[in-house]
């Protein structure tokens, strides 16, 4: 069983980094790359096992069986990995590996790098923990590990005004959101006396109280904040531009999805699925999704700062994912709901790949030119062809052009929303139109007449180009087999998420 190593390896790597760092810079970088590569290996193995067997893997910390001796309820912390968790763990480790590899060159001019690599590995631990945990308080702890590591990483360049400003904003509001989540958990514990998600799901199903609804409201509010949904997206637009680009790639590609949309979907389906009106929750999420879609994509058009543009575009893409989850809830049990949920899961993975790629491109531009103002960046394509090509692929994928991976996932979301409610499909299309406008504008800037600032630019080194090319390759390959992937991975993942009774029985057995 490889599951514990998913946490052990990066956690050990994080705590050993300061010691390994004593051996010199090279050793430190090599260590971080090695650890993330190992974690990627563990996650691939885990994903393969879960996908192959199609079962839910349960691991109990400190015991053979989650149930206590002589009692019929679980008393230990359990980790519960279904196909969805395994898929997201794979996504997290892949992007983390790519980002760390990229950092070896990108962060070379910064100081305090032993802290940087420690924090990155801790961030990875937090995200992996959220993906695999089956215990509500354990979830909160991992969420805080992830959040605190990302506060620190956003403000990592503490000699810049914007790093500090964004870090403070992110930390203050983020702590408030975490407090909401904790309060929700406290209410649930007070009412039902358990923290194991599977058992809690059973208890809520048996006795759905008003407290459970209040708790769900608090949890959803906190998680919508973490995912950057619209009324509470303001931290994201500051945090992503201010963070180092390798971190922006992880924040935008992973943190807002694992800590936000994944957790939301997990709680709404697996924990509250049997006790509440899914239609109501679905429509509430759809409402926020529509606002997020329009505002995020529309704000992306008017930006002049490249990373800010990508950040707003992330907000917009979160809108699609939320729309998929919302329809999956509101149309639960129908084919439309299945397709919408599969689309949301697929889009999460795709968006992680392409937004990570775009932020790495932005990082390469900043690293080589020292500016991210789009008005000064005209004509990069002449001096940095590989970077521009990577941007072209990323932008085309995020708009959803057919030979690339973004098409299939967006198509599933469009199709299901059109079947569910044509008005929602129209909103999704409007969002895409805005998104297209925003990216075509950047594209024209990249391909235009070289400005004075650009004439002496050069391509970055191999350690920055290779991660970009890995992601380009992943995007293209995933784009060539969209329906096979959707059929073999995404639809089964959506089904496991929808099948909450299996989630419960995996822990409780036949009870």
């Amino acid at each position, binding site marked *: 069983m490889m599951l514990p190593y998913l946490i052990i390896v990066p956690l050990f790597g994080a705590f050993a980094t300061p010691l390994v760092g004593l051996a010199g810079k090279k050793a430190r970088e090599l260590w971080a790359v090695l650890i993330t590569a190992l974690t990627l290996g563990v996650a691939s193995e885990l994903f393969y096992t879960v996908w192959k067997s199609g079962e839910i893997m349960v691991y109990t910390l400190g015991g053979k069986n989650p149930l206590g001796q002589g009692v019929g309820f679980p008393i230990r912390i359990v980790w519960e990995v279904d196909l969805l968790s395994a898929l997201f763990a794979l996504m997290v480790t892949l992007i983390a590996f790519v980002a760390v590899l990229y950092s070896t060159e990108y962060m070379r001019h910064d100081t305090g790098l032993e802290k940087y690599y420690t924090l990155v590995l801790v961030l990875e631990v937090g995200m992996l923990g959220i993906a695999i945990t089956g215990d509500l308080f354990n979830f909160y702890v991992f969420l805080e590990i992830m959040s605190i590591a990302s506060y620190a990483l956003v403000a990592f360049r503490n000699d810049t005004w914007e790093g500090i400003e964004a870090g403070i904003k992110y930390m203050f509001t983020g702590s408030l959101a975490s407090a909401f989540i904790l309060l929700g958990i406290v209410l649930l514990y007070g009412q039902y006396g358990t923290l194991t998600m599977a058992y809690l799901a059973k208890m809520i199903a048996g006795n759905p109280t008003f407290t459970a609804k209040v708790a769900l409201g608090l949890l959803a509010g906190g998680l919508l904040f973490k995912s950057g949904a619209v009324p509470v997206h303001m931290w994201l637009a500051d945090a992503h531009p201010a963070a180092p680009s390798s971190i922006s790639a992880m924040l935008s590609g992973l943190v807002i999805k694992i800590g936000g949309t994944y957790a939301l979907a997990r709680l709404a389906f697996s924990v509250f699925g049997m006790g509440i009106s899914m239609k109501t929750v679905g429509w509430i999420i759809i409402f926020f999704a529509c606002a997020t879609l329009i505002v995020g994509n529309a704000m992306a058009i008017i930006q002049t700062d490249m990373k800010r543009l990508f950040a707003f575009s992330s907000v917009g893409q979160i809108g699609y994912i939320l729309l998929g989850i919302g329809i999956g809830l509101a149309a639960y049990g129908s084919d439309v709901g299945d397709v919408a949920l599969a689309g949301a899961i697929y889009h999460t993975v795709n968006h992680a790949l392409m937004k990570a790629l775009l932020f790495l491109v932005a990082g390469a531009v900043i690293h080589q030119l020292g500016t991210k103002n789009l008005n000064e960046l005209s*004509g990069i*394509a*002449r001096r940095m*062809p590989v970077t*521009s090509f990577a941007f072209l692929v990323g932008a085309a994928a995020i708009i959803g*052009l*057919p030979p690339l991976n973004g098409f299939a996932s967006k198509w599933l979301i469009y199709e299901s929303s059109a079947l569910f409610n044509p008005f929602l499909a129209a909103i999704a299309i409007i969002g895409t139109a805005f998104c297209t406008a925003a990216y*075509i504008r950047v*594209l*024209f800037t990249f*391909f*235009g*007449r*070289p400005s004075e600032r650009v004439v002496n630019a050069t391509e970055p080194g191999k350690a920055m180009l290779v991660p970009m090319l890995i992601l380009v390759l992943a995007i293209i390959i995933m784009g060539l087999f969209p329906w096979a992937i959707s059929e073999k991975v995404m639809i089964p993942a959506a089904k496991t998420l929808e099948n909450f009774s299996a989630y419960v029985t995996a822990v409780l057995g036949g009870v």
Partner: protein
Amino acid sequence: MNVLYATLGFIGIYAYVSFASLLWGGIDRKLVARMQRRMGPPLLQPFYDFLKLVSKESIIPRDANRFFELAPVLALAVSIALLAYTPLGFEPLFGTKGDVILFVYLLTLIGFLRVLGAVSSGSPYAQIGAQREMIILVSREGPMMLALFTILWRLSELGVTKPFSMGTFYEHSIWELGTPMSVIGTVILLFVFMAWLASEIEVGYFDIPEAETELAEGTMAEYSGRHLALFELASAIKAFVSASLVVAVFFPWGISQYLGLTGVPAMVVELLFHTLKVFAVLFVSMSVFRAVTGRLRINQAVGIFWTRLLPASIVGALLLALDTLGVIA
């Protein structure tokens, strides 16, 4: 049909369409010359032009990036790929259900690649041409897509094997409905399609992005030699394909069943007959339109699309949709 035969047929179609579309270029020039009491060039002039351009040196501007050389190749590649989904008198070779979206996407992509190539040249003339092409591109596809999807939706109601594919037109024709409302709606949509065709091949009113006299060839300002030749060929194929769409939507009738042909001979006859129909449509929408109208300003052209053609398209679509209610039979 297995993949090998399909590929061979595809190559054959590509060769044929390249020939026919360039030939049409010659016919068009001849016809327009005659309309203006000139002799005009020989019929095969576009072939000579093409060969000459291919043999000439291609000059790459100093400020151009890699995409400048890549764009013509991609544009031609996309237009060739488009042929696999174009109705040419018979069902497209690689047609599947829903391929209409791919068709529209590839057709638009050719225009977009022209724009990208122009932007990559670094020339301000080309940049202005590119901006205009982009604006026209955005304006013209809306009315066409609405019209096309309405017709395909209406046809799919009649029961077809592959809904929303280009092969649908050969199973049912929109005129078959026969009700007064549907005929009026179809005529309105035909008008929209003819205007769209004129703007797709940039003639008459819509010769805006290239604008020889005003912008010195606009998007194509910096292209020369074989790169220009590739673009010219791609544009010629695109004109043929766009006209093929109009023909397939509105005039899909074949003649092979009257001649009692089946199999490959039938396909050849249909292809020739289709080519004739394409030439007829292009004669109206390209030669005549080009000879009798001048260029509009960009704002006027965009205005035409949003205030004339889009409403016309909406009215036509509504008529076709209301027709399903059977109020006026």
